[in-house]
């Protein structure tokens, strides 16, 4: 018997997806279960939002919006993806909606990046990290939205192309091309900056 067949023969309740469906079902009807789900996923959602929209104050609203949407969507969760993917997908779309509504919003001030740099490092390294984050967000913010999101999900979040595509409701090839185009544009922008300084 192949390993795939063995997996298929397992009782449904023992599969991680079935467990996720149970968790979603409980969280849809119980405050305690939803609180547990919230605790389990809030930091990952916060990271996703931060990487997609930057360290802006509106993240707090977006975080609440994500979990509000999660709460409403839980009854429809069927285990097609893991619960974590399901929640991150909602977070991604909340961030995209926000970015779309605020296309011309300026990049956050560099001091906003201070909260992202771990405390305790030596000041010179902290300043360097802050400058790098500021530069990256500035460059990424100049990208078209679809390329920006694809780049963040694949290059920064490290998602496999297929998963990033699933989260964006797009074909894997499309998302791959967007991420590559974003990378080329970012490299060109960095080269132009270097050239301008020299």
């Amino acid at each position: 018997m192949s390993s795939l067949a063995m997996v298929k023969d397992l009782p449904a309740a023992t599969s991680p997806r079935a467990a996720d469906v149970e968790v979603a079902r409980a969280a849809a009807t119980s405050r305690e279960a939803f609180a547990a789900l919230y605790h389990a996923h809030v930091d990952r959602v916060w990271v996703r939002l931060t990487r997609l929209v930057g360290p802006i104050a509106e993240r707090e609203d977006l975080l609440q919006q994500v979990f509000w949407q999660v709460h409403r969507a839980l009854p429809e969760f069927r285990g097609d993806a893991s619960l974590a993917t399901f929640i991150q997908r909602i977070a991604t779309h909340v961030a995209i909606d926000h970015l779309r509504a605020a296309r011309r919003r300026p990049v956050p001030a560099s001091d906003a990046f201070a909260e992202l740099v771990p405390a305790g490092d030596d000041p010179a390294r902290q300043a360097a990290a802050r400058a790098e984050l500021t530069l990256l967000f500035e460059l990424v913010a100049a990208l078209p939205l679809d390329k920006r999101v694809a780049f963040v999900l694949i290059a920064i979040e490290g998602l496999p192309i297929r998963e990033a595509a699933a989260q964006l409701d797009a074909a894997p090839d499309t998302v791959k091309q967007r991420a590559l185009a974003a990378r080329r544009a970012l490299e060109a922008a960095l080269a132009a900056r270097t050239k301008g300084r020299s």
Partner: protein
Amino acid sequence: MTSSDHLDQLVATARAVTPTAPPGPRAAVLAALAGEPRAVTPIIPLTSRRPRPALVIAGVLVAAAAAAGLAVALRPAADTPTAPPGLGSHAAPPTAGSSAPPDRGPDHVAPPSHVGASAGSSAVPPSPVVGTAPPPQVVPPGALEDMRISGERGIKPDAETLAAMQRDGVTRVVVPVKVCIDPDGIVEQVNILKRSAYPTYDAAIAAGVWQWRYRPFEVDGRAVPVCAVVQFVFSLR
């Protein structure tokens, strides 16, 4: 360093950043989960005209809390006039064979026949909710109250009911009412969640709430139907 290497370095720095959600929003969401919508106000003011996510999350739980009698009290002012006369006959008592749509619950109170005319649209009572439409969002009472533009808030029992309360030794009556408005801000559903022992007072409240009128409640710039649980508290002094 090539621009490609430079980009890799920037990406590596960004990847190393894994911020954790600060206690502010955590507390707001969890306060909502615990059924304490007021704890959310320092972050999301209830006076906001545009509903914020925290309010909506709180609203879901306020609705649940309301069922347990925990909704925020809305006290009638002492100097407000009594409910208009003749309203008692408009509030239909709950019946098993009610003609109200199923999702309105057994305590749905039919609108008075003059409500449509006073709202300036038509004399026809609000149409039932279409089955395919999404259910209205439940928002905290404060959020909906901010949008109210007309209608009497303080509804007192009539003299007969007051006499009955005194006779019964009742000094306080609490009547939670679920109010739903359509995207135009017109009341389209009134449910008395827990009736008092005084049907005339319940009917006066229901008829008074049917007179309320709101500004359209907008979410993301789009007017949406919403519901809130408003609690009437009448105290005999």
